[in-house]
């Protein structure tokens, strides 16, 4: 009996050891699940040129999980949960979490230089050379990458309601009781 258990344990151990060393890790799957937790603003505040590259860096161990300001503390917590790590505070060196923003072009000042169009990581700016440009608000992630290249400083970032204006009822803080009893 004891021998049988020892044999089974040894076999299982060998099997697991083999699986750990020989079977390839699903690198793409890990990157994809990390990428799915990132806010997809593509703002590059983390130091990588987009959310996917940052996800790859996290997966390979070259980046920390607290470098994404738009994701906020909730984003760090989700990553920590996924990767089985301890949540850490957001690293202020990479920026601070803020309200949702979208870019808006001041039409009087736009000279049609197309520099912002080239900078936009999600192709959310529409326009052509010598023609006024405009931002497709529904697709703008508020990444701010269009600001630095603009030679006439005609792009403003404006605060917008969360989730396109879906009204979220407040979490009850003050207990209110409205019902009457029959």
């Amino acid at each position, binding site marked *: 009996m004891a021998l049988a258990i020892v044999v089974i344990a040894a076999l299982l151990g060998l099997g697991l050891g083999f699986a750990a060393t020989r079977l390839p890790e699903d690198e793409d799957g890990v990157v994809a699940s990390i990428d799915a937790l990132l806010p997809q603003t593509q703002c590059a505040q983390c130091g990588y040129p987009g959310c996917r590259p940052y996800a790859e860096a996290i997966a390979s161990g070259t980046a920390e999980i607290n470098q994404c300001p738009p994701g906020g503390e909730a984003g760090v917590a989700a990553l920590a949960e996924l990767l089985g790590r301890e949540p850490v505070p957001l690293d202020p060196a990479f920026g601070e979490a803020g309200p949702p923003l979208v870019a808006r072009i001041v039409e009087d000042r736009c000279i049609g230089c197309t520099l912002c169009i080239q900078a936009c990581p999600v192709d959310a700016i529409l326009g052509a050379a010598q023609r006024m440009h405009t931002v497709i608000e529904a697709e703008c992630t508020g990444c701010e990458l269009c600001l630095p290249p603009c030679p006439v400083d005609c792009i403003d970032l404006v605060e917008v309601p969360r*989730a396109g204006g879906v009204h979220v009822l407040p979490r009850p803080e003050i*207990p209110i009781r409205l019902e009457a009893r029959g």
Partner: protein
Amino acid sequence: MGEAVAIGTRRWRFHGGLKLRHWKTLSLERTLATCPLPERLVVPVGQQRSGAPVPCVRPGQLVARGEAIALPSSPDDVALHAPAAGTVRQIAPAPVIGRGATEAPCITIDVDPDGPDAFLSPITPWATTAPAALRTRIREAGVAGLGGSLVPTAGKIDAAGDSAPTLIVNGAECEPYIACDEAQMLAGPERVLLGAQIIARAVGAAQVILAIEDERPELAERLAESAASLGDAAPAIVTVPTVYPEGGEKQLIRVLTGLEVPGGGTPLDLGLLCLNVGTVAAVHDAVVEGRPLISRVVSVTGRGFGAPRNLEVAIGTPVAWLAAQAGGYTDAIRRLVMGGPMMGVPLAHDDVPVTRASNCILGLIAEDITPTAPELPCIRCMECVRVCPAQLLPQQLFWHIRAGSYDQAANHALADCIECGCCAQVCPSQIPLVDYYRHGKTELAAQRVEQERATVARLRFEARSARLDRQEAARRERLEAKQQKLRSARDRKAEIAAAVARARARKQGNDEDL
């Protein structure tokens, strides 16, 4: 779609629920009356669940009563009609009471009481009219679920198709004060019964029943009298035990058939079509009188009003005007609620319009109100589990939402919560559970939108990255080709030079030989 379930005489019971004292006689002492038109109507345009209808009138335009003022933007939508004749004053956001929103775009109409009507032509006799024509009429007239869901009735009926479902007319008003359906049935039982027959014809229903609560004998008698005069084709009147929330669609179906509507499904999955009494009456008016959905019955009730009563009210009538028609506020009034005491929303002011979903305006006095008490910790007494008619785990839902684990709450079927308020009512720790669930549901909705937006951003980023890579590869290829050409040109030059050098060397050698 399931085979139609026949409803027999056996009654089941649903899980949980509460036996509450009824206050219906308060408003039923006075008969149903038509509320006079106010000077101005404010018709909210954004009340529909999927997208909002688009206004098709301009400020300053004259409209007739019953004329379409907003057209549907999708097939899941229905048109809105002018509740009264007059002049469109403005189309702008105004305060409203609805799920979540505090403001919605509204069409304001300056009422002209002597203005013209523009109803549809009556369909007579409807009994020989093709079902398709009846369905078209129900759509044109903009009939929507007056039980509060505002689901377009035409959509439900079209989904039923020709499946011959069992039609259940839901007259089991279970909120303690609300009596708008009962008032309507007492005042005009034939409207409801004929309306049910019209819908039965439109969907080819195998069986039609009208369910009311068993504690309303007077109503049962009145309905039976009216049904007898209509003969065999009249809907069967059945009574169900008076337990809150009996009037919930899923609860009523459980009581009548013993079956459960699957989570995320509809009664049609069981071969049932369930419609509210008000909706059925609106269908009757649309077909027999050609009258679009422009008014509804509202209970203006509670001891906070001088003369509580039920009123047929034009959509968009301000609550303040309505209150004045019900004897005004008494000195004792402490709280104004839109809806019933269990599921209603408290009003901060009375300058909001009645919408198609408003079934009740409730004025409560101090005695009716449980004093505000601090929220205490959950002691896991399981009272909420015992009363939950949706058979959820309210304490777990609360726990997850409070911890911000909205996904976990969703896994615990938060979407199946009907917000009936039973759990909050029995909670010994006075936890405002329903407020937590409403918060959780709206938070999840917002997260879904954010997730969709993130997906769009990711796809666009990937598409752009792929495009840039492609362009870079193409550029590199071009460069390579150019260099290749340059190199080959250089090689040719070198070859020629070498040949020239060889020739020259040979020539030189020849010269030396000579």
